């Protein structure tokens, strides 16, 4: 979503993005004239008149589970966004019984918070596990 019109989105997709990735953008390129939506999400830059690089993870109940906001010159990492969605999906499927340690990826061990785990995380998880 940006403040550009849908017509500009079409030109950008058809003339540039489709040359970078086959088939072009597969999802909806949203238009937010005047930054009205960006304003309620808190990422619209009033002075510049554009949105900043805000990225929101919204779960199936419509609840915001996480966000990241960057200033314009630095791009995001889609792999990290996907990793976070996978982690939130895992936690949701466990109905909150499991938590994912830093750098968690599907298939890696999770943490089961409870009285026995207090002060004992070091026995089951260390930062080195991130690299496995």
């Amino acid at each position, binding site marked *: *979503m940006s403040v550009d019109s849908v017509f500009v989105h079409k030109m950008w997709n058809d003339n540039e993005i489709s040359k970078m990735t086959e088939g072009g953008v597969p999802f909806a390129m949203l238009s*937010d004239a*005047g930054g009205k939506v960006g304003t309620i999400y808190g990422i619209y830059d009033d002075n510049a008149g554009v949105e900043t690089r805000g990225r929101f993870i919204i779960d199936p109940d419509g609840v915001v589970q996480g966000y990241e906001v960057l200033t314009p010159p630095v791009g995001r990492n889609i792999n990290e966004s996907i990793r976070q969605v996978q982690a939130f999906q895992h936690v949701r499927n466990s109905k909150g019984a499991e938590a994912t340690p830093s750098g968690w990826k599907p298939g890696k061990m999770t943490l089961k918070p409870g009285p026995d785990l207090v002060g004992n995380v070091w026995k089951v998880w260390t930062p080195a596990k991130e690299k496995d």
Partner: protein
Amino acid sequence: MPEEMKVGCARPTGGPVGEKAKPAINSEEKQITQQKEEGMIKVGQKAPDFTAPAYLKGKFVSVKLSEYLGKWVLLCFYPGDFTFV
């Protein structure tokens, strides 16, 4: 899921869905309301619903966030088309 739109010369617009609080009577309250609207939204709370015109695989459509309930959504904002990054 998104509805196709007829496109004319008028630039299609969207915006937040649902009534905003009525403007407060005294200016102090108004300021607070404004601040609240412009503040960062919070994790663990509902994502504000909105409708927005969009370009989707060759068509112009109207997208409403709440139509995606039941799915995981990544909502990404960016400064503008053709801005390099």
